[in-house]
Every structure is written in structure tokens, then in C-alpha cells.
């Protein structure tokens, strides 16, 4: 259970949002909407703990997390959290498989090559797993990143504009992945400018 209470955030002098509260139980997801510059990304960064909130608190399973804390509870939260931001976070010089392997190693998690290959195949990158990511297209790069949704088990997915640069097939695939994740008791928070036909959704308009 992820709860946020009375979150506030400002950038410089400008107040982006204030008094944002919500709570998500297993199988529920939150669709953060708002025009450009409304603070969607800021809210997501706040939730995962990349930046501190001006006010309010974030709790995961009752324990206080967020704001770069180094407590054991915050580390537990990070273990169950997968955040995919605006940036691709994949290295151009490495191939898709190496990218996934190092992502796992940096998270301190074991790497399952069979699982990773299956993930890349499902994302339509079969035969391209040993090409440097540099030669892939923007959409394919995005797919390499999305493969982490399959290789890294996490209860909370926080996806920032995950549908960008994807073709219609990949959009459907990501929808299916989200469905499976929610059906398995996961939580998700995402921003997107398109309507998402997924059950259990809630809308937060900034």
C-alpha cells in the first residue's frame, strides 16, 4: 500500500502543486494527468525519492519513505520500486543484454539470462540483443528500457511518459504488461497524455 499525504512541491518561486493526497492498494494504478509543466514529473520524482517534498509525507506499507532517506525501510522500498524516467538510462556502447545485466548488477540482484532473452524477444528485439544500442532506433531503445519491466521484479512501477516514442504495437504490449502487473497485485503510477484502458485506475489531475 502506497500512500501520499498533503504533498507539496515548488520550483523556485513557483508553486507547482500543493495538498496532493492519494493512496493505492495492490492492483490499483494512478494516472497522473496535467498539461505540460504542471509538475507531473516532479510528483513522480518526489514519489520515488529523487527529490524532497516541500511538505507532506509518503508511506510504503506504513513506513515513511521518500526524500533520499537511507533508512532500511527506504532501502526496502527501493528494492520493490522500478522507476523509468524520461531518460533512456541505457548505454549506447553496450548491447541490450549487457544493459539489462548491468542494471541488475547495480541493483544488486541476480541476473537471469534466459529470462532477459525472453523479455527482449517479447519486446520484439530478438536478433538485436547483441547489437550496440547506438544502432537501434529511438523506439527500439525505449523497448530495451521496457525490458526491465520483465526482468526486474518490483511491486511498484513508476513510469514517466512510458508511451512516448512507441509504435502502436508496443503501446498495446505495454498495456498488456501493465495489466499483468496489476493482476499480480502490483501498483503503478504513470503519466501519459493518452487515455489508458486499464481496470482499477484512478486519475489525479494536477
Amino acid at each position: 500500500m502506497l500512500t501520499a499525504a498533503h504533498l507539496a512541491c515548488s520550483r523556485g518561486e513557483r508553486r507547482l502543486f500543493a495538498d496532493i493526497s492519494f493512496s493505492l492498494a495492490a492492483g490499483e494504478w494512478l494516472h497522473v494527468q496535467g498539461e505540460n509543466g504542471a509538475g507531473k514529473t516532479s510528483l513522480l520524482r518526489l514519489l520515488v525519492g529523487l527529490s524532497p517534498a516541500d511538505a507532506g509525507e509518503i508511506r510504503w506499507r506504513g513506513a515513511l519513505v521518500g526524500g533520499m532517506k537511507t533508512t532500511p525501510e527506504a532501502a526496502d522500498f527501493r528494492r520493490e520500486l522500478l522507476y523509468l524516467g524520461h531518460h533512456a538510462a541505457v548505454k549506447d556502447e553496450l548491447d541490450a543484454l549487457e544493459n539489462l545485466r548491468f542494471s541488475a548488477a547495480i541493483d544488486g540482484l541476480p541476473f537471469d539470462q534466459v529470462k532477459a532473452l525472453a523479455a527482449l524477444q517479447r519486446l520484439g528485439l530478438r536478433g538485436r540483443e547483441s547489437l550496440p544500442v547506438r544502432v537501434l532506433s529511438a523506439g527500439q531503445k525505449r523497448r530495451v528500457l521496457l525490458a526491465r519491466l520483465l526482468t526486474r521484479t518490483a511491486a511498484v512501477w513508476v513510469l514517466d511518459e512510458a508511451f512516448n516514442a512507441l509504435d502502436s504495437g508496443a503501446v498495446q504490449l505495454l498495456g498488456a504488461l501493465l495489466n499483468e502487473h496489476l493482476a499480480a497485485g502490483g501498483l503503478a503510477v504513470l503519466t501519459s497524455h493518452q487515455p489508458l484502458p486499464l481496470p482499477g485506475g484512478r486519475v489525479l489531475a494536477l
Partner: protein
Amino acid sequence: MNALMAAVRRDVLLALRRRTDVLTAIFFFVIVASLFPLGIGPEPALLKKIAPGVLWVAALLATLLGLPRLFQADYLDGTLEQMALSPSPLALLIAGKILAHWLLCGLPLVLLAPVLGLQFGLDAASLGMLSLSLLLGTPLLSLIGATGAALTLGVRGGGVLLAVLVLPLYIPTLIFGAGAVAAQSAGLGVEGHLSLLAALLALAVFFAPWATTAALRIALE
């Protein structure tokens, strides 16, 4: 510890795929150190006297050359965010990156320095001392430099600012490092210089990764 080794392996592999960055710093060191004997001319006594300072300053500048890129790529492509959100402590991952930087930049300088020292007519004992002082000193350069690189991350004109920030902090390392070699070639005791260099290194190994991590967290906010 696994996370640290993973960070080291990743950075070394990336550097091997993109060799120019590593080779630039090494060539810079070789060229700068070779220009002095060519410019000053064959005066054995003078060359021998300036050798420790010249080689140490060249090593220092060669280290500085690659520092702005230490965190920049990871910062721009979002890898640093993922590291900050990793269940592994960020300080360990950053320590791994600093260790990789030393392996790729500091260690080649340690190995090359004696060869370059030959151009200055240093004797065998002084060449050995040059390697030893650089072996203790180059990790210090990487550690202090990483803190500076983290503090100037994402700042416009960060490269120049980094040099202004880091070069004064390099002064103690330079004094004791070059001093050890000069003392050796003058036939004086070197223990004092080396002990102080080692003490600085111990201090930096303990504090620099934490300071770097704190600076990176601020840059990520």
C-alpha cells in the same frame, strides 16, 4: 561489495568500447612530459632537478582532462537516477566509479611515468620513487577530482569551474608527491613525504565517496 564491483566492471567495459577518452589523457601526459626536455634542451642537471615537478604536474593535468566526463554521461542519460534508486548504497556505486576512474586514468600514468622519467635522466632509485609516489598520489587525484566533478555537475561552464575548484585542492598531493621524488634524487629521506601522502589518501578514501555522493544527490534534485 558486488554492487561496487559491478560499477567498476561497467565503467571499464564502457571505456574499452569508447577508447578515445582514456587514450586522450594518456597521450596528453606523454606529450606534455616530453615537451619539457625538448624545450629546455640537453642540460642534464637542470632536467634532473625539474623532473619530479614536471612529471607530477603533467599527471595532475592529465587526470583533470577526463574529470568533467566522469559523471556527465551517467547524469545525462538517467543512469545516475537509477543508481540513486538502487537498493545498493549509492556511496558504494560511486566508490566503484572512482575506482574505475583510477584504473583507467591513474594506473596507466603510474606505469608510464618511469619511462618518461628516463628522458629527464633520473636514476633508477628516483624512477622507483616516482612510481611509488604516483601510486599513492593518483588515487588521491581521482578521489578529490570526483568530488569536484560531482559539485560542478550540470553547471554551465562546469569544466573550467572544475579546474578552478580542484587544482588548489591538488596542491598538497603535488607538494608531497613531487617532494618525495626530489628528496630521493637529492639523497634525503623520503619517509615523511610518503607518510603524509598515505595519510591524505586514507583520509580521502574515507571521506571523498561520501562527499561525492552528497554532491550528486544535490545535482539530481
